[in-house]
């Protein structure tokens, strides 16, 4: 094949056509890319806009963690109105998964005024996240009152409990973070106490009665299946439990309540015991004296039993600290105040 023949052949024509088409396409796309490219900044602004509902200017805030149940991933302060936009990942979801949410925290006058919006960004292992409706998420805004800590019981309509917990944790984490940023950390008077592993210290309060006894209004944390219990325990001056009432049973169903230790439910197991007595039960852990109902504490309601047990241990172990405090600080006025504030 001579050179002349080659230039006249179909092969040459094909090559030329393909090259031309490619060149034209490439040039066209290059120009268009230059014209239409979306910059990272624009993309970010768009993402923020989508969450916020209107275009706003933001500044980045350094991230820090104030809550064990949530990780703050990103935080922005909205320049226009001073609100905060937090990306927070809540732990403790279904199957140990997490849920990442964008949360708009309404701030005015240097204090948190509410939650404007919660948007679910992503999740890990929460197969039923679609069942969390907007209605359920709106409850975060509706239910906000000062100092509230969201628990999964507050949020109805989201069927999957674990996912709900993770979302609540994310929102609580964001609230804690913003509060800390603004310097409004409510001092946690019980933080240094013993046996607080299962106690929701920020929700718990106490009052000192006239006869020197102390009544605790304890709110426990939820533990996997059972959600938090509310227990009122009165400790007299000798550190002995005189009154014990479960005001709110966190157990999920009657089946579980029925399997809880009867003495824990009505308090007969604790009443008349001081810390040493309760510690003995705790140390024995699994095998409680089965004199009461024959049910051992190792039943399916173990978690519920443990929550109540810890509440009792918390009350009996720590009551003397409060008494000392009260002596030093004019008769418990401050703790009372603290208590109401926390409620």
């Amino acid at each position: 094949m001579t050179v002349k023949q080659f230039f006249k052949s179909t092969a040459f024509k094909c090559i030329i056509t393909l090259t031309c088409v490619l060149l034209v396409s490439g040039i066209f796309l290059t120009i268009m890319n230059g014209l239409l490219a979306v910059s990272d900044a624009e993309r970010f602004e768009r993402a923020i806009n989508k969450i916020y509902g209107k275009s706003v200017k933001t500044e980045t805030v350094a991230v820090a963690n104030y809550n064990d149940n949530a990780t703050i991933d990103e935080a922005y302060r909205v320049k226009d109105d001073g609100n905060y936009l937090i990306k927070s990942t809540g732990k403790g979801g279904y199957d140990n998964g997490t849920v990442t949410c964008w949360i708009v925290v309404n701030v005015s006058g240097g204090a948190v005024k509410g939650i404007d919006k919660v948007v679910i960004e992503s999740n890990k292992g929460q197969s039923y996240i679609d069942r969390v409706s907007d209605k359920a998420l709106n409850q975060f805004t509706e239910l906000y009152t000062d100092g509230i800590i969201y628990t999964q019981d507050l949020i109805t309509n989201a069927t999957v409990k674990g996912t709900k917990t993770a979302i609540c944790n994310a929102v609580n984490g964001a609230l804690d973070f913003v509060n800390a940023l603004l310097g409004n950390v409510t001092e946690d008077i019980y933080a240094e106490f013993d046996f607080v592993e299962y106690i929701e210290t920020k929700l718990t309060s106490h009052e000192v009665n006239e006869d020197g006894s102390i009544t605790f209004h304890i709110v426990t944390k939820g533990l996997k299946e059972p959600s938090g219990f509310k227990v009122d325990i009165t400790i007299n001056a000798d550190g002995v439990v005189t009154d014990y009432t479960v005001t709110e049973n966190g157990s999920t169903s009657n089946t579980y309540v029925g399997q809880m230790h009867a003495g824990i439910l009505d308090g007969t197991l604790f009443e008349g015991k001081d810390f040493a007595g309760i510690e003995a039960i705790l140390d024995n852990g699994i095998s409680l004296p089965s004199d009461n109902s024959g049910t051992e504490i190792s039943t399916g309601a173990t978690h519920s039993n443990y929550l109540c047990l810890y509440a009792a241990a918390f009350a009996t172990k720590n009551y003397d600290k409060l008494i000392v405090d009260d002596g030093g600080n004019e008769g418990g006025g401050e703790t009372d105040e603290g208590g109401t504030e926390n409620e």
Partner: protein
Amino acid sequence: MTDNSVVVSTPPHVKSRRTTRSVMLDVIIALLPCAIAGIVFFGWRAFVIEAVAVLACVATEFVYFFILNKGFAKKCKDAGAVCKRWLKQFDFTSIVTGLILALILPSTVAWYEVLIGSMFAIAIVKMLFGGTGKNLVNPASAARVFMAISFAISTYVAANIPALRFESGIFTDATNLAWLFPSEGNPTTKISVLDLFLGTGVAGCIGETCKVTILIGYIYLSVRNVIKWWQPLMFIAIFGFAAVFFSGFGFIATGGYIFDMELFLPHIFSGGVLFGAVFMFPDYVTSPKGVYGQIFYYAVAAILVAALRYLTKLEVTSFVIILMNLFVPLIDKYFIRRPYGYVKAKKPKAEKITPESAAENLIEPVDANASAAPDKEGK
């Protein structure tokens, strides 16, 4: 004039008094104890669900038949004739489908959800594929899967095996079956096997709760020769062992694998396995025809149910029924049935090469040994 004494039909030319109608009547009778037990355990709700499901199934079939046979044509002139024809061909299959569907639903399900499920089962799963005997998958289990995907998950996953997993809070009215899958955080209380067997104090689907009634149905069906007695037994036995095998992995976290045979009975008595094994797996239309094919079908299904239950912690029996039903044509293709009257030709024994025969063939003995050696190794 045609000669009416000659009947032309496709093979097999077997005449018996057994008709689809009588078989289905047997199945209905076998299902009745379960249905009654359901009403006893769950009250009027169960009755409403059963009634709605059965009525909706029959009505859907009727409407479909009516439309297909042009009952509406010519201003409903032929409506009466079409109705008569429908009555003549009506073979109770839709009643069975409706009843089974009602029995594998939890009692908390809403009546309109049952209505939609029944319509789906008959219209889409059965009639669209050609009606009785032509459906690809079991209509009742397909409808249950459809409903489980479509409607609020909590009412569906829950009831069959409540709280297979302790951690997930999606289950309502939970009982403690989580100990079937031991792992950290799961409760260790055991429900007595007797409770599971009788269905007392255990949440479950309407017809699956009381295992005694299922056994009664099984015995009746076996005696009437509607199902082969060994099929459910084989399925359940393999499932039990596989389930015990899988739940053994849960012990690893707390020290070592345990093959705990104590879990055997609770495993087979929980959820819909027993019900599925007796009433849904042996469905003629959707199970393989040959014996070897059936053995393969039940074995794979049993292992699948056990494995998927362990992995997903959900009730999966109806999912597995659909899945295996879809494999039936394939199984029928590769497990070839022996044609009727066919005697297997004996395979001519492979001639062994012995030194003698080798000698006869005038081959040197050394060669014969060499060729015999790999033969021995092969055995």
